């Protein structure tokens, strides 16, 4: 009986691996081994040529830096806006709350393309088109509703007694927030940050309209590459998009560690 259950577990894990992870590994292998000619499934040869091509291209490096800067700024602004909003929604009851909650979900209920097209002329007038600032602001639309949702369920799971206990002990609200709430909310903050970073990394059409082709990010360079004959370079380029969130996650974890040790010693 137990053996049968274990067999089932192995079967399902294998299925999940084949469905969701193996395709990405195939892409990674293709970037190292472009040799496979149809109908060859794999080729034994491999080299780093595609990666050399990618990292010696100044446009790609420039776009990479822009993409990371925009992504990090979008995460930071989302944190500053979503945490108070989620706190307000989770800890207070007031008239019209369902209405406010639906307004906050609006950017994911209507196409962001509609928002970008509507805002284009206005953003030209206030000088936000063709700038990083404009691109960062428009990236808030597809991200902020998710950030608020993730942080709100974080606050919902967190019992209010922690805050009360802190208040009873005479700790100020500000201090409670930084020393108690943030460490307890870390799982939500972590998922919020990665989710927001990935969404910002995935934007092509918003960056293209508001950035006006002047703000170069990786997706803007990726699209013309998509149909290029050099399949190894396209594959390598795609792999960068998978590696960036992972690198971001590692750096973010490092920052969290620093923060926690600073809080503990304070």
């Amino acid at each position: 009986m137990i053996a049968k259950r274990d067999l089932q577990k192995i079967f399902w894990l294998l299925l999940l691996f084949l469905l969701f992870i193996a395709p990405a590994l195939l892409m990674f292998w293709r970037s190292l081994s472009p040799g496979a000619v149809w109908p060859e499934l794999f080729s034994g040869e491999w080299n780093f040529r595609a990666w050399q091509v990618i990292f010696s291209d100044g446009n790609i490096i420039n776009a990479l830096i822009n993409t990371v800067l925009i992504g990090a700024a979008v995460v930071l602004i989302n944190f500053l806006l979503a945490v108070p909003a989620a706190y307000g929604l989770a800890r207070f009851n007031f008239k019209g709350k369902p209405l406010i909650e639906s307004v906050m979900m609006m950017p994911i209920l209507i196409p962001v393309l509609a928002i970008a097209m509507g805002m284009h002329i206005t953003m030209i007038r206030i000088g936000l088109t063709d700038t990083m600032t404009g691109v960062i602001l428009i990236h808030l639309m597809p991200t902020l509703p998710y950030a608020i949702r993730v942080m709100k369920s974080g606050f919902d799971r967190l019992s209010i007694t922690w805050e009360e206990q802190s208040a009873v002990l005479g700790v100020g609200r500000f201090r409670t927030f930084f020393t108690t709430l943030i460490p307890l909310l870390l799982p939500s903050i972590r998922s919020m940050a990665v989710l927001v970073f990935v969404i910002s990394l995935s934007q092509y059409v918003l960056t293209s309209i508001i950035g006006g082709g002047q703000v170069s990010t990786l997706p803007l360079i990726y699209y013309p590459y998509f149909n290029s004959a050099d399949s190894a370079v396209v594959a390598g380029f795609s792999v960068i998009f998978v590696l960036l969130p992972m690198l971001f996650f590692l750096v973010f974890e490092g920052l969290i560690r620093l923060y926690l040790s600073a809080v503990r010693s304070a």
Partner: protein
Amino acid sequence: MFNNTPLKRFSAFGYLLPALSVILFFAGYGLYSAFRNSLHLGEERPLFASYQELLLESPFWESVSISIWVAFSSTVISLVIGIFLTRRLVRLFQRDDWKFAAWFPMLLPHFVAAYIIYLLFAPSGWFSSLAAQIGWIDTMSQFPVLVNDPLYTGVIFTYVFKEIPFVILMMLPVYQEMDLRYEDVSKTLGGSDWTVFKTVEVPWVMPVSLEVFLILFVFVLGAFEVPALLGVTYPKMLPVLAYEWFYQAAWANRPLAQAMMVLLSAVSLLAAFLILRFTYKWRSHWAMRREDV
């Protein structure tokens, strides 16, 4: 609770205000100016000329049907497979370490998922090679056209690959909070797997499924990234057509593009209103049933 005093209510708005004003400025004002720009204000032509042109223009309706086809089929397939996987895996594994394998595609941007589908299903792709190795086909052209095809099969595959993890993410808490003792009741009384699903799980699964359906359907209708890579020139999906109009003919077709986006937003908001109202009623109905017991 003790938070109904005017002061408390005021401070709630203080917390909400920053996020709310950003959203109202971009989404609210953006939608408003898209509507304004779609009208011919102070011009010779009638006010709603662009709407008239849009609705009488044939590529619009072709795009509407292909967009609805793609959005509906990819959303339904993702929901069915996602719910199936969740209910199997939740019962099989006590701890949920497996979820990280299932969530992996969420880390991929949509256009990278599109590239993976291209790599697998293109005429020169991996499955075509596999079919040739097995001996099913002899030349590349015998492999069915699954990317850049007029039925948008590759686009649907991409969305299914990307959205199943999202369905699992949304369904997992539902199944974890569900009282699975009802399943025992149903099983002891001779209920089949299907009866268990229908009577025990549906009351919980239904409202979340509808919400997920809404989010995904609306997203696919309005998303440009994937059909721009794996679509065809005719018929185009709505966002691709709108993007083309937006830059065409020295901006002369912008009102047309904006009229389309305004209509799409209006339909999406209406659908959201109806679905959220239904799920609210459904939830309160089942909450009452539970209190009776």
